[in-house]
């Protein structure tokens, strides 16, 4: 059977779905298998339908597909919700006392395991999910020692007894299936020698921040950005940093601003509704020329929208949000490892150009876990560029005739010197009011123009100095061009394979920079058809591209709250290209 296996556990929120899924994902990762997870969860603590899906292969996987091979159904609704994805090689593990009352298609193999009573035999009903994991190991011929290791990692801190009980629960599940079923469904989850780490986008952002030297974080909990704060809490301290849970987003960004002015690499993270609140201070950050990284982990909007669902709807907000005209950079990682690297880049841009940088991720990146070789996060590759920082010895070059520090000096590249508080003779004020080179308020028309131009010039400088490139996949000579940003890269890369099988060649550009962004005019001119793929209704990125190249592009938009799936995206692209061909 195929190497590629899709496994899921579903039930009610509060059933331990998330931790069970994570344990299995870790077991697979420890066995050297590639893992890609996705979560379907509701905005409630208990009840409602929630699921954790894992796709695993010996090859790299980076998206979800419309297929489920093994489903652990803790409730009947779990089966109902996933019926479309089950096929004739699917097995559904369930507890006959709790689910499977309805009639389901005959081709689906039901594996009735007394999860609760076996768990009680192992030491407590709470372990019924672990019994199900043991059962899944048997069906998939997966070495249970990997599960043992994951259980040790998960429960080690709770004592040997708990670990042993969980291992026993897994054994009971495995043995029950082995003794009572002779299944036609057959999978082999082989092990490999690969050594992987398993993490999600929020964690990668937090890890990138620490690696980049971020030492101060202030935030307010909000789905799906909270994991960034939870990751940093307790870890950043070991590097001399600190996390503050602020009273609201307004406070969070202002604290982060204060820390940045004191010289710290500083960050805040939130989601759309929090960005709205932070926008008040965003202009101040830009005008006072304070380096700050603001992470927006997008979810469905507007307003409180769908807090636990995927969308890429905040692009316009991060590009244009705030009154007046504000120079800023907008960087959008396209994969989980890129969440790490783009965070590092974001800090360098922020300090080199003394601007706020929006790091825009989306829910699909944030909550998805994926395996990577540890070298994907090689700390030796991390570069820290603090820009034009002056010290006691060099501050003199930037003093005016009266010995005052020109904190907003009008330079050719638009970037002024920066003196951390404590620097002798560097004392100066910064303000959200229009100001002169010394930071003092002014309404002088010439100074106003000079300072606006100076701030905007930083963007021109950055355009010249940095590599605002895209990531390219597929056939470079294909007539059909697909462009996307954010998390769609994974599904699209895999869709390329499906399209290739159908004889459709596609060139795919994944763009991690929204502003500044690469000039795609040549690429689009060379293509017969250009399709922009994004998770929003109005095609915010497609609009930008049309604006840049003065040419119409085709769009594939998804805004039902669910990320693109690779097979579905391949179908959409095939259909779009066929329609285009007919029109020509």
């Amino acid at each position, binding site marked *: 059977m195929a190497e590629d296996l899709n496994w899921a556990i579903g039930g009610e929120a509060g059933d331990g779905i998330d931790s069970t899924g994570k344990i299995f994902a870790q077991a697979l990762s420890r066995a050297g298998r590639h893992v890609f997870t996705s979560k379907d969860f509701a905005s409630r603590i208990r009840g409602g339908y929630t699921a954790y899906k894992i796709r695993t292969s010996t090859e790299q996987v980076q998206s979800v597909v419309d297929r489920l091979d093994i489903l652990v159904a803790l409730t009947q609704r779990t089966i109902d919700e996933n019926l479309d994805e089950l096929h004739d090689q699917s097995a559904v593990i369930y507890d006959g006392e709790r689910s499977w009352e309805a009639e389901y298609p005959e081709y689906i193999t039901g594996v009735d395991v007394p999860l609760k009573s076996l768990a009680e035999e192992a030491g407590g009903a709470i372990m019924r999910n672990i019994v199900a994991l043991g059962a899944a190991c048997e069906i998939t011929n997966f070495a249970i020692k990997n599960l043992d290791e994951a259980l040790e990692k998960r429960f080690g801190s709770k004592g040997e007894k708990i670990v042993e009980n969980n291992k026993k629960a897994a054994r009971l599940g495995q043995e029950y299936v082995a003794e009572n079923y002779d299944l036609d469904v057959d999978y082999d989850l082989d092990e490999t020698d690969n050594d992987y780490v398993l993490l999600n986008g929020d964690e990668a952002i937090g890890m990138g921040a620490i690696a980049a030297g971020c030492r101060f974080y202030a935030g307010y909990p909000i789905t799906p950005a909270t994991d960034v704060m939870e990751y940093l809490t307790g870890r950043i301290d070991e590097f001399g940093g600190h996390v503050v849970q*602020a009273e609201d987003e307004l*406070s969070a960004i202002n604290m982060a601003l204060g*820390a940045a*002015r004191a010289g710290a690499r500083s960050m805040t993270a939130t989601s759309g509704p929090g960005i709205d609140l932070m926008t*008040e201070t965003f202009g101040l950050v830009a005008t006072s020329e304070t380096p700050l990284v603001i992470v927006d982990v997008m979810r469905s909007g507007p307003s409180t929208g769908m807090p636990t669902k995927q969308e890429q709807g905040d692009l316009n907000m991060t590009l244009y949000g705030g009154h007046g005209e504000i120079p800023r950079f907008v960087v959008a990682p396209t994969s989980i490892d890129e969440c790490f690297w783009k965070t590092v880049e974001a800090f360098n841009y922020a300090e080199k150009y003394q601007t706020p940088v929006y790091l825009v991720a989306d829910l699909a990146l944030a909550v998805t876990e994926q395996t990577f070789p540890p070298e994907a996060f090689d*700390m030796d590759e991390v570069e820290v560029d603090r820009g034009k920082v002056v010290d006691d010895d060099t501050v003199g070059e930037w003093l005016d005739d*009266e010995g005052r520090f020109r904190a907003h000096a009008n330079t050719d590249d638009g970037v002024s010197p920066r003196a951390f508080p404590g620097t002798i003779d560097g004392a100066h004020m910064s*303000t*959200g009011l229009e100001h002169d080179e010394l930071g003092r308020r002014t309404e002088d028309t010439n100074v106003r123009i000079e300072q606006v131009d100076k701030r905007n010039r930083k963007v021109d400088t950055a355009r010249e100095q940095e590599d605002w490139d895209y990531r390219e996949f597929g056939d470079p000579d294909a007539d059909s061009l697909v462009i996307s940003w954010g998390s769609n890269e994974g599904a699209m890369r895999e869709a390329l394979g499906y399209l290739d099988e159908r004889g459709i060649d596609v060139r795919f550009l994944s763009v991690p920079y929204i502003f500044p962004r690469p000039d795609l005019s040549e690429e689009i001119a060379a293509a017969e058809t250009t399709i922009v793929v994004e998770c929003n209704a109005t095609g915010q990125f497609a609009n930008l591209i049309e604006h840049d190249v003065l040419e119409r592009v085709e769009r594939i938009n998804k805004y039902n709250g669910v990320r693109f799936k690779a097979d579905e995206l391949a179908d959409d692209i095939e259909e779009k290209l066929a329609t285009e061909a007919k029109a020509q």
Partner: protein
Amino acid sequence: MSSDVKFTDFKSDKQPTWCPGCGDFGTMNGMMKALANTGNDPDNTFVVAGIGCSGKIGTYMHSYALHGVHGRALPVGTGVKFANPDLEVMVAGGDGDGYSIGAGHFVHAVRRNPDITYVVMDNRIYGLTKGQASPTSRQDFETSTTPEGPKQPPVNPLALALASGATFIAQSFSSDALRHAEIIEQAIEHDGFGFVNVFSPCVTFNDVDTYDYFRDSLVDLQEEDHDPTDYQSAKEKILEGDKEYMGVIWQDEESVPYHETHGVTENMADIPDGAADGTMDLVREFY
């Protein structure tokens, strides 16, 4: 800067645009004197202000400073202090800034107890927007937006601070130069959040809470032999409401500032050129 810092070293060369006679002149002079008297200099001092008349203070003083948006000065000052605990951080604002738009931040700054000094220039009116009621305006104070008075009781900032767990509460009067500077000095020297509500009269729009009014009505706690470490006595004075006091009303001598309770002691500006030693452990954690 040398060690013999004069208070004029904290003065910028920008002439204040406050109205002649404004209470803010005295408030600021006292802040500068207190900073100099406590051994600070402009290079280790960070002053944060919001907007309005009070917000202009950063412009007229010479130090590291940020003039931010309305009501958010306390979070900025808190962030500065956390990132570099060696800095002397002073936050200044008005009654609108601190008790209206920034009231939420005030409560939380108080309970966090960062080692910063918070000076509120309370003139009981909105001055720069030309005379509307403020959160500390009297119930019957007629203004352009409250022709019959606000008809609601004013905020009692001292009570708000006390209820939020303040470790230092004082009240001062901008025209009593000596006492005012002394009180700010005590706030600076307090280990924790030093909150000083300063009566700083608006000579243009407030004809009720005037210099004469405060001169006649303020009771100096020093003359009453008030013990600021006596919580009960402080509570009574803050809540009784029939007298207005000047001086340190409450000081928790056991106060431990945020950076000490949370172990935030490093200057966060000091980071290595690349990823710090030990960052590879962060990756290994995900095995």
